C-alpha cells in the first residue's frame, strides 16, 4: 500500500505533500505534549517493534500467512498523536532506506496511513472502547485503519487518472476487505494477549460517550471510504451550479482556486460550529 513515486499525478502528490506538512507539525506538537516526559525512546523503539513485527507470521489459510500493520495497535497503546508520529517516522525510513514508497509520494502515504489510518483506527476505541463492547472496538479499529488507508490509496490512484476495469476494482476492494478483517483479528488477538501480560496496556478512557457522536463519526468514516465510489456518477452540486452559471468557468485559475478554498473554509466552519453545539448539548 506504499505508493512509489511516479504512480500519482503531479497535482495529487503535490497537494497531499502540502496537506501532510501542517498535519505532521500539529501532530508532532500534540505528541510532545501528550506524553508525560520525554518519551522519544519509547516511540522510537515501539516503531522498531512495528517494523520487526512484520517478521512474525500469522496463519491465515492453508499455506498463506499475514502480518500486523500496526497503526491501530499503536493508537490503542500510545494514543492517536504519538501513534501517528511513529507511523510518519516508519514511512520516512521505509521511503529513504528501503525504497518502499516514494519520496515525493511521502505526503500521500503519510496522509493515508499515518494520519487518516491511525485516526480512523482510533475512532471505534475512542467511542465505545470503554463499554462492554471493548473487544469489538479493538477489532473494528484494526480493520478500519487498514480499510481507510487502502481506499484512500486507491482513490488517489483513480484521481491521478489511472484507469482500471470494473472487475479489477471489485477484486481490489474484496482484497481490502479481507486484509482489513485480518488486521482487525490480529490487532484484537495481540491486544488481548497484551492485556493478559500487562492489564493496564491500553490507554485509559473515560466511559460514557454520547451515542449520537458515535453514530455521526462512524457515518462520516463510512461515507468517506465507501461513499466515494458512489459519488462519481451523476453531476454533484458544484457541477450543477456550473451548468447554471457557465460564466464562472471563465474565472481563470485563481478565481476557481479561491472559490474552491472558500467553499472548503465554509464547510469547515460549519462543521466546527455544529461540533461545538453538539458537544455543549451532550455535556
Amino acid at each position, binding site marked *: 500500500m506504499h505508493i*512509489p*513515486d*511516479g*504512480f500519482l499525478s*503531479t497535482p495529487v*502528490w503535490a497537494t497531499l505533500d502540502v496537506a501532510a506538512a501542517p498535519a505532521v507539525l500539529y501532530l*508532532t506538537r500534540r*505528541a*510532545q505534549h501528550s506524553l508525560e516526559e*520525554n*518519551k*522519544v*525512546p*519509547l516511540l*522510537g*523503539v*515501539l*516503531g*522498531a*517493534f512495528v*517494523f*520487526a*513485527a512484520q*517478521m*512474525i*507470521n*500469522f*496463519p*491465515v*489459510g*492453508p499455506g498463506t*500467512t499475514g502480518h*500486523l500493520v500496526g497503526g491501530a495497535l499503536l493508537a490503542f497503546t500510545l494514543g492517536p498523536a504519538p501513534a501517528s*508520529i*511513529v507511523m*510518519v*517516522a516508519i514511512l*520516512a*525510513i521505509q521511503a*529513504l*532506506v*528501503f*525504497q*518502499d514508497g*516514494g*519520496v*515525493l509520494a511521502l505526503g500521500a502515504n503519510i496522509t493515508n496511513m499515518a494520519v487518516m489510518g491511525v485516526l480512523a483506527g482510533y475512532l471505534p476505541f475512542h467511542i465505545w472502547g470503554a463499554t462492554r463492547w471493548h473487544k469489538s472496538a479493538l477489532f473494528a479499529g484494526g480493520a478500519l485503519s487498514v480499510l481507510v488507508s487502502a481506499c484512500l490509496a486507491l482513490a488517489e*490512484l483513480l484521481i491521478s487518472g*489511472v*484507469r*482500471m*476495469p470494473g472487475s*479489477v476494482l471489485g477484486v481490489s476492494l474484496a482484497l481490502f476487505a479481507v486484509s482489513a478483517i485480518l488486521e482487525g*483479528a*490480529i490487532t484484537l*488477538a*495481540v491486544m488481548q*494477549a*497484551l492485556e493478559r*501480560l500487562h492489564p493496564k496496556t491500553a490507554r485509559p478512557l473515560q466511559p460514557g460517550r454520547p451515542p449520537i457522536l458515535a453514530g455521526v463519526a462512524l457515518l462520516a468514516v463510512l461515507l468517506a471510504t465507501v461513499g466515494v465510489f458512489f459519488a462519481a456518477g451523476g453531476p454533484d452540486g458544484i457541477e450543477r451550479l456550473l451548468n447554471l452559471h457557465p460564466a464562472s468557468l471563465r474565472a481563470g485559475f485563481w478565481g476557481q482556486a479561491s472559490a474552491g478554498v472558500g467553499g472548503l473554509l465554509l464547510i469547515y466552519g460549519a462543521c466546527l460550529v455544529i461540533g461545538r453545539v453538539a458537544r455543549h448539548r451532550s455535556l
Partner: protein
Amino acid sequence: MHPAVVERWARGSSPLHQRDPRAKIIALLVFLIALATAGPGLPVFAGGLLVLLIAGLVCAGVPVWGVLVRAGIVLPFAAVLAGVTWLAGDPTRGAVVALKSYLSALAVLLVISTTGLPALLRGLEAMGAPRFLLQVAQFLYRYFFVIAEEARQMSRAAAARGASARHQKFGGQSFRAAAGALAVLFASSYARAEDIHRAMLARGFEGRFPLLGEMRFGRADLLFTILASLAPVALRFAVERTFA
C-alpha cells in the same frame, strides 16, 4: 538485501560522500520533481537521467550493479499497475510509471548510500523539520536491527518447537500463539525503551543528541547544489525543445 549494506556504503569518502547532506537533499528534490513532471520525450529524458545517476554511482564508488538491482524493488508494483492499466486500454501508462518509479528509487538510493540515514536526518533537522519527529526516526532506525533480531530469534525458537506458521493448519490456537509472541515482543520492547530512557538520563541527556563534527555548507557544497540541480533541469529543457 540487508539495509545495513547501505550504511556500509555510506562510509565511503568520495567527493559525493563529503558533500553536506542539505546539498544532496536539495539536489534530490529537484531531480525527483523534474522527473515526476516530465511529459514529452520521456524515454530520452529518462535515458539521460540514468546516465547521470550511473555517473554519480561510479563517482561515489558504490557497487553500481548492486544499486541498480536494489532499485528494482519498485518494479513488481509498477508491473501490477501496468497490467491493470493495460487491461483498461491504456498501455503506455504502465511503462511511464515503471520508468519514473525506477529512476526515482535509484536517485534516492544514490543519496542514501552516499550519506547514510543519520546524517540525512540531521540535514533535514537543519532544514527545519521538527526535531522530535527526527529523534523518533533516529531511535527507530537504531533499534530496528535490535528488535528485528529479537523477532527473528523468537520465530526461530517457535519453529524449533514445531510451531512454524507455514506448515500448520489454520486454527485459533496457532493464531493465538503468534499473537502471544507479538505481545511478548511488544512488552519487551516497551521495557527496553524504559531502560534506554533511564540510561540516557543517567548519562546526562538533555533533549538533543550531541553532534560529532559540525555540518558545514561550504563553497563546494554550493557549487554541487547548483550543478546537480541544474543538470536534470537543463537536460529536460533540451529534450523538450527537440520533441515538442
